[in-house]
């Protein structure tokens, strides 16, 4: 759906060349929610804005839905942008227009529908985001979450195939964040919309994304399915992000298990395996004893997942590992 071929971006600031994005290759699949996470200045915002050319690339090719965006002329680019929705951290609604008129704006600009058709469409859109009764209010009269809903309705107005989310929940409180993420997941599911979102919160990625790219200093240092990246982070930046979401248990990084005897393994359960009584079964069958050193259980998007760090003793550890692997559990040996 979205392809980056060696896309890079540099700015000249006071005669100095600042690289915002190193040559990057990226593929976003149709219908997926792709998350980009990074600290501020990592280049994620630049990358997002390259997709609809709010930022001009310094080089490389960007292909969206078969169209070479980098080759579009001014008019072609406007047409293209009308088919790509975008929402923002600070909502960027027009204070001078009512909620209904904000939502109608992309339709008016496109100039393809009649007034009556626009009115009808706005009613549908406001119903979808649950703001029907606020149509005649001004943005200043709404809460942050409501403003972002207006932003979403506005972004969906022209029936785009792609939605770009620029830190869409960063200005919202945790509860409102949850609601907005839920709405995004819902429209992704129901409209088959491809969503690219950027954030600095791993939790946002965990809750809605299918795949994730981790950015650091203008480079995507790691990417893959959210469960892979989340449960087996490779790059230090990724590990730090994952750690941030685990409040007090930080099992995944460099634990010192010197006082503990036995073979130390980390088990990762995804999906059904999470709730199956595997551990007890395997322990009974193999006579292995285990003590739990650390653990976490949670959800990644719609999938349950768990991770346990165990110390195994009793002699048949390898057999136990084999059985666990056979049951679909990912086993990592931290200390043989």
């Amino acid at each position, binding site marked *: 759906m979205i392809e980056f071929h060696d896309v890079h971006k540099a700015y000249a600031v006071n005669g100095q060349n600042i690289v915002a994005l190193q040559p990057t290759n990226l593929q976003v699949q149709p219908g997926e929610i792709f998350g980009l996470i990074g600290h501020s200045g990592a280049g994620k915002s630049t990358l997002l804005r390259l997709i*609809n050319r*709010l930022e001009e690339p310094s080089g490389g090719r960007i292909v969206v839905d078969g169209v070479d965006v980098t080759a579009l002329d001014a008019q072609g*680019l*406007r*047409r*293209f*942008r*009308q088919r*790509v929705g*975008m929402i*923002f951290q*600070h909502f*960027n*609604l*027009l*204070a*001078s*227009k009512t909620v209904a008129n904000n939502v109608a*704006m*992309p339709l*008016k*600009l*496109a100039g393809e529908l009649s007034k009556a058709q626009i009115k009808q469409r706005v009613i549908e859109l406001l119903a979808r985001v649950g703001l029907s009764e606020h149509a005649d209010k*001004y*943005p*200043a009269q709404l809460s942050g979450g409501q403003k972002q809903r207006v932003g979403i309705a506005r972004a969906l107005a*022209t029936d785009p195939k792609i939605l*770009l989310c620029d830190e869409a929940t960063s200005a919202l409180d945790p509860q409102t964040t949850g609601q907005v993420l839920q709405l995004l997941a819902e429209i992704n599911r129901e409209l088959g919309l491809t969503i690219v979102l950027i954030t600095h919160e791993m939790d946002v990625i965990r809750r809605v994304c299918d795949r994730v790219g981790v950015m650091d200093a203008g480079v995507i240092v790691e990417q893959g399915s959210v469960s892979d990246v989340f449960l087996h982070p490779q790059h230090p930046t990724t590990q730090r992000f994952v750690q941030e979401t685990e409040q007090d248990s930080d099992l995944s990084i460099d634990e010192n298990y010197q006082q503990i005897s036995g073979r130390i393994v980390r088990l990762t359960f995804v999906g059904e395996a999470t709730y199956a009584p595997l551990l007890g079964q395997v322990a009974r069958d193999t006579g292995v004893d285990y003590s739990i050193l650390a653990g976490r259980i949670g959800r990644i998007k719609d999938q349950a997942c768990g991770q346990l760090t165990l110390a195994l003793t009793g002699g048949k550890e390898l057999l136990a590992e084999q059985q666990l692997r056979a049951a679909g559990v990912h086993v990592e040996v931290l200390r043989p």
Partner: protein
Amino acid sequence: MSELLINIDWYEIWQATLDTLLMLGGSLLFTVILGLPVGVLLFLVGPRQMFEHRALYAMLSFVVNVLRSLPFIILLIVMIPITVVMTGTSLGVAGAIPPLVVGTTPFFARLVETALREVDRGIIEATQAMGASTRQIIFNALLPEARPGIIAATTVTAITLVSYTAMAGVVGAGGLGDLAIRFGYQRFQTDVMVVTVVLLLLLVQVLQSVGDRLVLRFSRK
């Protein structure tokens, strides 16, 4: 009462008030018509804006600054030949409007530029992301969002114009200020002075409160 206001010719006061209002209305109209596009242009080519153009901005900025630093009274006199070409006369209401417009347009354009800069960049970005053309960005986003600021700028400009119209009396423009100078000041007719000044004060008050009300009406923040 009649002794207090012994020098007052109410018909003349009425005529002068009418002249002032005509000068004010006419020159305000042309100032807005000319100054708004200049202000938008100043904004667009300004530093870090959509059409940043250093040379053009520097040039426009220079012209605006020159016109703003010229004392209005000098401008009035310098403009006489040009005014005659434009309106056929340098006298009366018609003769006053060109120098008034030239005097206030740069001022108004600067205020418009400032009002536009107050518009959140994010709103421009959002409008661009919708696929808006430059024209659409200006008319559908920038100007509506800056409307309260532009109304406030118009109010300030109108009040500046009131004091300029008084000066325009010097070149034979007529109006309340002219009355105050010729009768009130030069002939020591204090009553005329007081009456004209009170009328000017009322005019300024009315302009300011109407402006404030409009700003409030269009502010949605």
